[in-house]
């Protein structure tokens, strides 16, 4: 529990430092405005990507550029059931990325879920609140997955008991 607190503090501090975004129109194509962190065409617009691992299973990749910031998370999955639950739950969220605004529709390769924050988001919403959202999300995801696992096991047990009663 203590390492969780340290891990989240580290991510929060890194995000506070990295979330310095400004508008930057595309250099290659006229009248286009693209999130540079996704394209990675010009190295002068990108900062060093930072990988923060809590342990072998959980990590967080933060990549920044001049007008956008991408945060990719890998959630702890201890067994096969949690694997499936995490995948399905996070896919459910990613498909509704429009509602979240800062969520990316597809996670980056090797991670479970990704956020893309652009300068427009920083202009409309407060930077501190965005960071609070991300950190809160990370805290809640663990709780959600454990709750889901618990309910799956409980329901499985109930169903099995009911079904096997007819054979008594």
């Amino acid at each position, binding site marked *: 529990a203590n390492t969780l607190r340290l891990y989240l503090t580290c991510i929060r501090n890194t995000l506070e430092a990295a979330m310095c975004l400004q508008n930057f129109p595309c250099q290659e194509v006229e009248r286009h405005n693209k999130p540079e962190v996704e394209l990675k065409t010009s190295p002068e617009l*990108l900062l060093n990507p930072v990988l923060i691992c809590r342990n072998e299973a959980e990590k967080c990749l933060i990549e920044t550029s001049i007008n956008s910031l991408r945060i990719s998370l890998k959630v702890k999955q201890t067994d096969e059931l949690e694997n499936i639950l995490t995948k399905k739950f996070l896919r459910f969220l990613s498909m509704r990325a429009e509602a979240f605004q800062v969520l990316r529709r597809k996670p980056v390769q090797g991670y479970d879920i990704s956020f893309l924050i652009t300068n427009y988001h920083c202009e409309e919403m407060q930077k501190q609140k965005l960071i609070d959202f991300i950190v809160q999300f990370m805290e809640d995801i663990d709780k959600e997955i454990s709750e889901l696992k618990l309910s799956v096991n409980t329901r499985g047990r109930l169903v099995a008991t009911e079904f096997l009663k007819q054979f008594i």
Partner: protein
Amino acid sequence: MAGHAGFVEADNAEAIITRIEHKSRKIESLLKQYKPVEALKTALEGSPPKTRDERCKSANWIVVHRAIMAIKDVEGMFSSLDPEYYDILMKYLYRGLSTGDRPTCDQCLRIHEKLTERAGLGCILRSLSDTVNTV
């Protein structure tokens, strides 16, 4: 200019690795005398920032890693570490955090929190934006 730099690097790589080995011996002896802060200072001092040779960086990282893992008292360390080492320490902390090895990450997270309190967000931003001198 680029050719000249390449020539200098190939020559210096061996020299730098020898220097790093000297440093690691010195650090081992300092750690035996229970002086982890001095060991860390020695490790951070001769950091070769201008090389692009991965072997030099890895060799130096191994040395710094040894010194970081030996630190038990984080608060005490900061009271005796000079501010000029904060930036380079932050870069090595991020390298440690990317390894994924549990004890390393635990130690690096602990030091990271205290270092941010001390040095502020500017330190983090300098380590993010410095694409020339990476560790």
